[in-house]
């Protein structure tokens, strides 16, 4: 077969010209795998509502990897399971990227045990969790009765999130008091389904992961009620206890960060508005806890008032109430 040079030239010309023409409306989202299910649901419904005139892509680069792209201006919206950090704020500032920080739902870290476990039905205190998980427990605290003498004399099998995940960061911060500070001799996996199976198979196991994985596996696992401080009542994770703020300190808000420059594009603005309108119902559908309705209204108001920046100042915090969060001053 002979390929005529003229045909090749025509094809190349076509490629170049159409590439320039076809900047059809596209919204790029990337970031945390924890936020992904919510954003995916919103993107799916949004594309349907817009009859595919606007296209949305969602990637999973992790909160950290996603912020790198976001602060280079490669993405329009960033999914984040934790607030933006100091270093990322600097990167964004250097590239001239300003952003809106919008909490969109709650993720409740859930401490689970085997359904046959009964001695934790009355709950576990954060103090006890700390004793079990802090680095000094490594190699020493190996049996349940070492944590509390009233618990059985049985081996303690621990399952937790992998060290690269935001879940690990938040759990260690909330329980041990310092992010990434944890004992190392437990079964760690980035794949929460591995943790579900591990706890399901071992009577002496205890593990932690996001609420959605517990919600989908309620028959196989038992959630442990958390006692924030001595004297407080044990609280089981549920839509209600997270919403009313009693499930502490393991409930955390998850965010989307919207680039202010991208928000000037009508397709991005439409998508964000759709997110704030339908995010609540869609989050519930994918087993996340939605924010109270007034929070979405506040988000919309912040967009209208151009309240750019973060309210965290580059540091991770534990156990912030959503109302307090939304009332704070934002900074870049």
């Amino acid at each position, binding site marked *: 077969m002979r390929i005529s040079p003229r045909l090749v030239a*025509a*094809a*190349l*010309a*076509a*490629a170049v010209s*159409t*590439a320039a023409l*076809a900047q059809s409306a*596209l919204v*790029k989202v*990337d970031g945390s*795998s924890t936020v*992904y*299910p919510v*954003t*995916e*649901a919103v*993107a*799916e419904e949004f*594309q349907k509502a817009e009859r*595919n005139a606007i*296209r*949305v*892509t*969602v*990637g*999973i*680069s992790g909160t950290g990897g996603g912020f790198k*792209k976001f602060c280079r201006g490669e993405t329009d919206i960033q999914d984040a399971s934790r607030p933006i950090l100091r270093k990322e704020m600097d990167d964004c500032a250097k590239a001239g990227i300003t952003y809106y920080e919008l909490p969109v739902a709650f993720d409740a870290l859930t401490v689970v045990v085997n359904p046959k476990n009964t001695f934790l039905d009355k709950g576990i205190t954060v103090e006890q969790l700390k004793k079990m998980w802090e680095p000094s427990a490594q190699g020493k605290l190996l049996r349940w009765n070492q944590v509390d003498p009233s618990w059985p004399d049985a081996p303690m099998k621990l399952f937790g999130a992998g060290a690269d995940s935001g879940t690990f960061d938040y759990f260690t911060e909330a329980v041990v008091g310092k992010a990434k500070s944890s004992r190392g001799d437990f079964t760690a996996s980035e*794949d*929460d*389904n591995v943790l579900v199976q591990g706890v399901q198979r071992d009577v002496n196991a205890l593990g932690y992961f*996001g609420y*959605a*994985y517990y*919600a*989908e*596996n309620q028959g196989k696992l038992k959630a442990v009620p958390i006692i924030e401080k001595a004297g407080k009542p044990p609280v089981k994770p549920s839509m209600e206890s997270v919403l009313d703020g009693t499930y502490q300190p393991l409930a955390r808000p998850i965010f989307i960060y919207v680039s202010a420059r991208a928000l000037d594009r009508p397709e991005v603005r439409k998508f964000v508005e759709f997110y704030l309108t339908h995010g609540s119902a*869609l989050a519930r*559908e*994918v*087993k996340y806890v939605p924010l109270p309705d007034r929070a979405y209204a506040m988000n919309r108001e912040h967009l209208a008032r151009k309240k750019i920046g973060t309210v965290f100042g580059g540091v991770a915090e534990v156990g912030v109430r959503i109302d307090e969060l939304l009332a704070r001053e934002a900074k870049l």
Partner: protein
Amino acid sequence: MAMIPPKPAATTVRGSTADLRRLIATARRWDVIFIGLGLLALGIGILTFLALFVDMLIDGWSRLRPEFFAQFPSRRAEQAGILSAWVGSTLVMIVTAVVAVPLGVAAGIYLEEYAPKNWITDVIEINITNLAGVPSIVYGLLALGLFVYAFGLGQSVQTAGLTLALLILPIVIVATREAIRAIPAMIREGAYAVGATRWQTVRDHIVPYSMPGILTGVIIGLSRAIGETAPIITIGALTFIAFLPPAPVTAEFPYLSLEWLQAPFTVMPIQMFNWTSRPDEAFHANAAAAGAILVFMTLTMNGLAIWLRYRLRRNLKW
């Protein structure tokens, strides 16, 4: 092993047939043992694969319906499909093949037929062999720096295709060289003897005769590329993408469009990986179904290679 013990000369004649029989029996026993071991090794490999494949088929059977191929990803497992994934994988494979095959075959021919035998050639050869063993994630990082940022090709089908082309280039080159080496020297000498130039020899003899071997190498390379996840994730493939790249054929002049090269994309292994990590178990069936299809795609490519090799070998007369 039983050895014939040295015996006094007087008994040798009578004892030798019995000894010989014993020796043959021992040797036969070793044959049987070796065949058994070989079958065992083969069985472990094949049975493991079959067990995995059948298990995936059973898990994913309920999802292996025509709609599964025609639907985009969705938050609802039963509405989710692999349309964007299989189209993405196919397009990326096309780019990979179009780039890697001409480059790899040309490089292989050059190294076998043209390259002078000196230390530079040796260094190149050692490098190619080493490149075949470089972990794929390294190619992903290279591609992220080179294709995505330096060349500005974006997180697109063309970047993924080029990355995987780099990944399989050493495989294609090595396969080409092996295939060329398998051609008897007399063919080449015969061509030169009747006055053919080097290029005529290559075009009319070397390339056609080595084609079966080259094709096998190409397909092995592509089979590896289609299952790669790490480099594709590194260059920024997406997880949720509910639209297709623009069609390569358009209604207006010039009827051809290469716009799809710049389109965002996802591929089969990424879609599978995402589904296996979902909390909802219904997605695990989707992952199993997608896995079975991916295996099927790989087997089809391998089958195609075997068929092509058989057909081309039939035409060889030497």
